[in-house]
């Protein structure tokens, strides 16, 4: 009883704190940066609070259920949210003071996954269930935590790539640079472009374009770095899963739907890395591949579970 109450409290605290953090993010987006530096800092502190709340939530569940809290979709969603806030924390601690684009991705991702996990859709799953015989292994911790961390990092990285694509392609989008004073509309530029014989205007355009270029380049580099990190987790996750399968199911590879989709995800991000080795394909092309990867992760993560097919649904060995 006390555990479920504690769990409830922690869920609500973390959820509200992330909401506040996102509100602050929007404020910093639309107001002048200089005036809200303190606010921005407090939003970072808010993320740290969120991180510890979700950690507490997971630990509570662990003690309560007696097994590593990654046995169903609800727990893995909470863990995914934890992964987002972890990435946020690490990037914050590593690049102190410097505002990076990553926090704009991680904070909303954390709130969305957590919101989805705690929403009515999955209420039936809130009760921590028993562990199926096939899941009773030390590999559970290694395999599932690595997979979910991998998903978290890959989702962040591919979202950055999606942002890059949006900035590159959307005509009327406003550019959010390091400084919001520089916000301008592309339409305006195009208009000015038409009559760009005025030297001042051309200077202005190139100045703006330079910021735009710098931003897309930053997005590109960050998404590459984070996808690389997620790829490591994904690789370790898939391979430890294969070793586990060889212990539990009789073969290290069964072409089970979830397994196959994880491999598809892995292949797509391998393609992403290969597109980057070619200078001509870098940038927009690799970002396209990464945003494809974004969709595939969701198919892999949710699609297979919702359909409940294959060995990963554990239907074949339980008594229901």
């Amino acid at each position, binding site marked *: 009883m006390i555990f479920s109450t504690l769990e409830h409290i922690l869920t609500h605290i973390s959820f509200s704190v992330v909401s506040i953090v996102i509100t602050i993010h929007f404020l910093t987006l639309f107001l002048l940066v200089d005036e809200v530096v303190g606010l921005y800092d407090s939003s970072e502190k808010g993320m740290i609070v969120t991180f510890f709340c979700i950690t507490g939530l997971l630990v509570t569940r662990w003690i309560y259920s007696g097994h590593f809290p990654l046995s169903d979709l609800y727990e893995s969603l909470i863990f995914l949210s934890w992964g987002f806030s972890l990435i946020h924390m690490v990037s914050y601690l590593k690049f102190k003071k410097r505002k990076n684009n990553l926090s704009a991705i991680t904070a909303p991702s954390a709130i969305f996954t957590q919101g989805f996990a705690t929403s009515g859709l999955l209420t039936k799953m809130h009760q921590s269930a028993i562990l199926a015989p096939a899941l009773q292994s030390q590999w559970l911790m290694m395999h599932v935590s690595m997979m979910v961390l991998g998903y978290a990092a890959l989702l962040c990285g591919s979202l950055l790539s999606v942002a890059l694509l949006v900035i590159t392609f959307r005509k009327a989008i406003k550019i959010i640079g390091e400084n919001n004073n520089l916000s301008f509309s592309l339409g305006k530029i195009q208009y000015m472009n038409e009559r760009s014989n005025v030297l001042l205007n051309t200077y202005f355009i190139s100045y703006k374009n330079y910021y735009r270029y710098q931003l897309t380049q930053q997005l590109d580099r960050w998404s590459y770095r984070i996808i690389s990190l997620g790829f490591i987790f994904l690789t370790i996750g898939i391979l430890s899963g294969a070793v586990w399968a060889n212990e539990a199911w009789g073969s290290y590879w069964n072409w089970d739907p979830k397994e196959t989709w994880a491999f598809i995800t892995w292949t797509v991000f391998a393609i992403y890395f*290969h597109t980057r080795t070619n200078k001509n394909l870098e940038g927009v092309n690799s970002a396209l591949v990464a945003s494809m990867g974004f969709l595939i992760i969701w198919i892999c993560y949710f699609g297979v579970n919702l359909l409940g097919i294959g060995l990963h649904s554990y239907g074949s060995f339980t008594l229901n």
Partner: protein
Amino acid sequence: METLLNPSKTPNLFIPKTHLFKLSFLHSNFNPQPHSSYSRRPLSITITCKVKTSEGRKNDGKNISKKIVLTDSAPELSNEEIKAKPKGGGKTWGVIKKFPKRVLAILSNLPLAIGEMFTVAGLMALGTAIDQGESPEYYFQKYPEENPIFGFFTWRWVLTLGFDHMFSSPVFLGTLILLGTSLMACTYTTQIPLVKVARRWSFLQSADSIRKQEFSDTLPQASVSDLGVILMGAGYEVFSSSLPFQVTANTNIESYLNSYKHGHHVFLKGPSLYAFKGLAGRFAPIGVHLAMLLIMAGGTLSATGSFRGSVTVPQGLNFVMGDVLGPTGFLSTPTEAFNTEVHVNKFYMDYYDSGEVSQFHTDLSLFDMNGKEVMRKTLSVNDPLRYGGITIYQTDWSFSALQILKDGEGPFNLAMAPLTINGDKKLFGTFLPVGDTDSSNVKGISMLARDLQSIVLYDKQGKFAGVRRPNSRLPIEIDGTKIVIVDAIGSSGLDLKTDPGVPAVYAGFGALMLTTCISYLSHAQIWALQDGTTVIVGGKTNRAKAEFPDEMNRLLDQVPEIVESSISKKPDNIGG
């Protein structure tokens, strides 16, 4: 600080008497080994000269600029290989080169490789979308010709291309093989030469070329040697050249050596510096490719050389391993261990308080041909039994029989049959005739069970009579018959297999994990040049492009400013 001077070991380093401050394992890689006959002597010098002289010969028609030393891209490399040919072209090389080279070039083509990966991914996705391993009738019904999916996809596609068994279909395996050969070709033609290039390192002698790097900065009132110490502290391998030398096409090794013989005390006094970090990160992708190839080889061995089989054995019965195991491919060869006889001593389940099954256990004894017990183990899910290359897994269970006493007589064994009602997966039932068993309309008691824990009994009319647990010895009276349920005998569902590919696959897994992690390292290179009291620093990195400027700025902030600009004071600064 100890400096290591080993000119004898570095005849091919082109800039002898440079000082390796850290002699890590990577450095040993720097000593070129006589790996291939064609490239040993002339090639290395040729390339070096070209590389070094590029700055002086910019107008040269062949645009082999300094980029060659630094670049990641393959085309220039193959350029070098071609140029090297007339000088060092051995006969063997020439033979290998003719036809296979074209094939290699096609296979190692990047867009082709990307296309293959997309194809593999697409086929796998299709394999999960189409239900696998069904009968042809199923596909006739699901993909009818009258109503094709996307206007063209019918059962003809599925059956002709073998998409009903995607992961063993020729199309899929063919694509995988093609991908494997591309992997090999790419490793051979692109990645290995990349190592040769990356192992070369050079000082940049012109301020312009340093400023052209992705990151560059100018430090007034600073010294290269301070920078070197700071870079070393940050984990860089630092090399410095003590004398400003101008390399031309005519410069040879001897002249380098002569020019360096005079510089005895050359500890960081040089005006030029080269430093790098994370070289392993540049080589690791080769390891990733090789690990993938190892896994593919292991997987092929698994597919062609395995035995598999599954068996459901009631508690107390025996089977011989070889009877169960069937070969999966032409390389499958049985072993001595196949004669082992397996006896199921006991099959039982653990339950949670809620009544759900928590674990399945089977107590097995293994007997060799002489009837001697060679092994005994209780296996469970996640804890298989391994003997003589054969692995036995707990994968399933079944209800074999119910042992009962009828009116004190018995015990009788009633065979339990699996019932499939409403898609129920595990429901077993049996029937005990009561009264006149010869009549055409036999009536009796029905017994149903979902697990080995509790048996539900129904009377002749089919009405619920009661629930009994085995071993409880509590009799139940139905229609005048007294029944005691003595025991519930389960069958253990076991999977057996041998897999000769596992060691190779596991080795590949280990290598893949390791090399993927190392691949995260970013190969950073830094050049610096002392220009009077100013130091010009430039650098680049291949992966951590986002973090690199930050790291560089942080390091450069640490470089002390020299107030009284005098070069002679610097060694003291370092010492202190």
